[in-house]
């Protein structure tokens, strides 16, 4: 007998530890829900939260990862960027779980699948932040998208099903673009691994038409996911139709995850083409902030308004990324953190004002909110001020950061456009404040008085203030995290 040595890549699983924990928790929750039909949803919530916390612990442990920069055959990167992006996402997931638990209990649509679906979506989101190969990016994108399609249609309302359908169709469409982009990249460089793509592109001297087409297609794919103009059409409908708790989770989570992947793909794989893609990015950035802000003015439904505002925020992140350097990445990370905080908080308030389901999401139902609940009005004010970028909130520091990055890189016109758009945006944020403080409540309907939810929403509120007053607490970490390893 001849001893055969089989060579295989050494398998190091630690860098995908957070995903393994999340998926395990998801499977346990899934089985728990299926086997024990009468299981208390509080138990499922606890299991899921435990999974999120466990994943966070594993992610933190990866901060000082000393091993190879990519593992599993170059598929997954182990760097601090992934750690920070994951932590933001896990925070979003924890809030999403609490929101979902509360929302569906109030609307009487409790189903055990909620928890595994949320956890799987989160696993997809966290995986994408560490993806070092376009195939893994696509895989993770599909994991998160499929879970979100289902979650969007989780309510029995017609609007929810319609939103789910729209999201699915347009999502599939964007996935096709993305996949075609990957194929083009492979054609141009002979690889789907980000580092190999970068090397191949750096070595090329001739025409790069194929690679540029790939850049464009991938940009379209990401543009859909982050809801950048002109690929934003699905956002208002889906955000409005989806159950508010799910909207909160996906508006924050998807954007963070897709931007993390965007950064990695464009700053690593297409780094040799930086001069070609920055004009695209800042053009999209400028158009997105303007269109998002202007269209938000015309909305009469608070969820739609927040949807357009989230489009505008995607534009601001792109303003930061247009700098195409470490400063820009750090600024974008901070912006994403601030954005996730304020959008989660704002949708949380929307949820409580609606009391049950989607009854009261029109802007008119915010009239006189200060009279009915000073606490909720105060929190909403804080989130809206943060979105408008007014100190001392996280949104202010975030905006300063991205504009600074863009101006340092010489893109002051796009910064100016961004700042002017934020003035237009301020108009609709203060319109909500006008309603809350300056008008009389139309009826005596009290908003949801759940104490647990109030405490839950107090967390992003506190974070919005802390990040606004002491951004130094996290900026140091974000700076360290803005170096991508490949």
């Amino acid at each position, binding site marked *: 007998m001849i001893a055969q040595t089989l060579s295989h890549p050494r398998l190091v699983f630690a860098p995908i530890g957070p995903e393994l924990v999340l998926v395990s928790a998801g499977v346990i929750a899934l089985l728990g829900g299926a086997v024990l039909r009468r299981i208390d949803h509080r138990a499922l919530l606890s299991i899921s939260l435990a999974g999120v916390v466990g994943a966070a612990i594993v992610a933190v442990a990866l901060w000082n990862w000393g091993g190879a920069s990519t593992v599993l055959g170059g598929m997954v990167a182990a760097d601090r960027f992934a750690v920070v992006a994951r932590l933001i996402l896990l925070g979003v997931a924890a809030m999403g779980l609490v929101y979902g638990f509360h929302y569906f209990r109030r609307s009487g649509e409790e189903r055990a699948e909620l928890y595994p679906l949320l956890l799987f979506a989160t696993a997809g989101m966290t995986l994408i932040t560490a993806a070092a190969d376009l195939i893994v990016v696509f895989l993770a994108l599909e994991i998160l998208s499929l879970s979100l399609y289902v979650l969007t249609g989780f309510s029995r309302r017609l609007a929810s099903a319609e939103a789910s359908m729209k999201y699915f169709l347009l999502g599939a469409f964007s996935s096709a673009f993305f996949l075609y982009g990957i194929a083009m990249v492979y054609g141009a460089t002979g690889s789907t691994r980000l580092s190999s793509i970068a090397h191949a592109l750096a070595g090329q001297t001739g025409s790069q038409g194929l690679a540029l087409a790939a850049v464009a297609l991938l940009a379209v794919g990401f543009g859909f996911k982050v809801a950048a103009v002109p690929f934003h059409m699905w956002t208002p409908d889906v955000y409005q139709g989806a159950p508010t708790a799910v909207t909160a989770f996906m508006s924050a989570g998807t954007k963070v995850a897709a931007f993390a992947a965007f950064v990695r793909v464009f700053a690593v794989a297409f780094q040799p083409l930086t001069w070609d893609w920055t004009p695209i990015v800042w053009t999209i950035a400028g158009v997105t902030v303007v269109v998002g802000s202007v269209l938000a003015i015309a909305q009469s439904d608070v969820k739609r308004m927040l949807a357009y505002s989230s489009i505008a925020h995607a534009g601001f992140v792109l303003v930061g990324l247009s700098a195409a350097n470490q400063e820009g990445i750090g600024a974008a990370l901070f912006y994403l953190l601030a954005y996730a905080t304020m959008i989660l908080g704002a949708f949380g308030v929307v949820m409580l004002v609606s009391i049950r389901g989607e009854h009261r999401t029109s802007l008119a139902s915010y009239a006189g909110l200060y009279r009915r609940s000073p606490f909720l009005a105060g929190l909403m004010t804080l989130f809206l001020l943060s979105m408008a970028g007014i100190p001392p909130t996280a949104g202010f520091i975030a905006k300063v950061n991205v504009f600074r990055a863009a101006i340092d890189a010489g893109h002051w016109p796009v910064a100016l456009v961004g700042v002017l758009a934020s003035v237009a945006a*301020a108009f609709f944020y203060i319109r909500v404040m006008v309603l809350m403080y*300056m008008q009389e409540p139309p009826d005596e309907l009290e908003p949801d008085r759940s104490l647990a939810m109030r405490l839950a929403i107090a967390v992003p509120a506190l974070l919005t203030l802390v990040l606004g007053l*002491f951004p130094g607490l996290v900026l140091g970490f974000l*700076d360290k995290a803005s170096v991508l390893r490949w």
Partner: protein
Amino acid sequence: MKWLTLTTFLPLVGVPVLLAWRGMRDDLARAFALLVSVITFIVSLGMLGRFDGALSGFQMIEQATWVRSLHLRYLVGVDGVSLFMVLLTTFLMPIAILASWKIEKNVRLYMAAFLFLETGMIGTFLALDLLLFFLFFEAILFPMYLIIGAWGGERRVYAAVKFFLFTMLGSAFLLVAILVLYSKSGTLPGGPTFDVRELAHLSLSTTAARWLFLAFFVAFAVKVPLFPLHTWLPDAHTEAPTAGSVILAAVLLKIGAYGLIRFNLTLFPEASRHFAGFVQVLAVIGIVYGAVVALIQTDVKRLVAYSSVSHLGFVVLGVFAFTQQGMTGGVLQMVNHGLSTGALFLLVGMVYERTHTRDLSEMGGLGRTMPWFSGIFLFVTLSSLGLPGLNNFVGEFLVILGTFARNRALGAIAASGVVLAAIYLLWAYQRMAHGPVREAHARHADLSVREFALITPVLAMILVIGLYPRLLLDRIDPSATRVARQVQAGQPPAGQAAVSSVPAPFGEGP
């Protein structure tokens, strides 16, 4: 003792108490806010005591690193220009709160907004770090918006939104300009910074400096307000509650003028000289236009508001003369306008509480029914129109003197503003106090003890400054002279600037 920090943040301490204490009775909330603002005033006197009038630079500087990676520092200091702005703020705040005693709706929120506003305003005057300044500058926006919009008159929402958007629009340009300056400051020996003192040494190309000047200018011109960016002011002043109008006129408008002195002149001296003619013409248009429009108002609050446009024109005119008298007079006039117009708004508010009208044609004969009120109103009116012996005379005289040295025609036209002021103010007094007593307003009580208590300190200050202006001038003058010299000398102290003829605004591209 960290006087500046203490003065700045003391009012803020009251905010969480007011917001969180749900069961707080309205009376207690009022008294508490008053107490906090009085203590703040006393503490700010400590700052005055420590101030060395002989120094022309910044003093009592306090600093700490705030956000290292942003190069954002907590850096505050005071000089002769900002000293009296801060004191004006802390002096008027207890008066404004006392004037709000009749507010019944959401008292805790109202008082909290005022205290928050006070911290923002003081911080704006003391900040020496551009980004810190901007932070305070923006933080003022929301409480003021709330005060106008929630407790104002009939068209309050419109006025509040207009105020908010105008200011936001101005500050948008300001933010971009600040960040551009910052990104250019990497060449300084200390590395990139927002420190105003360091940035004054930055060598900018002429074109870049001029564009940046304009960006700063728009932000502050909206605040001042300079013609033609003044249109938010009459609405905001008219619709705001009395105390809101007082603070708006007395302090918020000064932030614009202060910003012009502190930032436009010191950071961009060449551009300041280049645009001086243009700015002065705008100022003179504002003086005459504000006065003429005030002349035809029948709403007394609107009349006072337009008089502000006119008076602030004097301030800017003096400041942009770049002469010692002009600059000192401008700064003094900022204080004077705060006192006189503040007092006018207080008095108008008192009348409105009784008559429930601001229409001059419906008043009349108040001199007979409310003799104390009418006497005091006349006194303030005379102060506002620049009667010698009262405060405005000194400031306006210095401004016109300083302008004359530079441009006789502008000085002469500006002087006509004083004449017009006499007409519209005395006419307003006449329509209000003289004539037959109206049936509807025949039985109004004269001023109450509270009203006396809040107006007397202002009257005293008007008289003191009028009779002994050196009290202020001695402290203002060194700093004002320094700024004027700096602009005249044409360049920041060291290393000046390549002249670039390229039209591209901000120099090097990506």
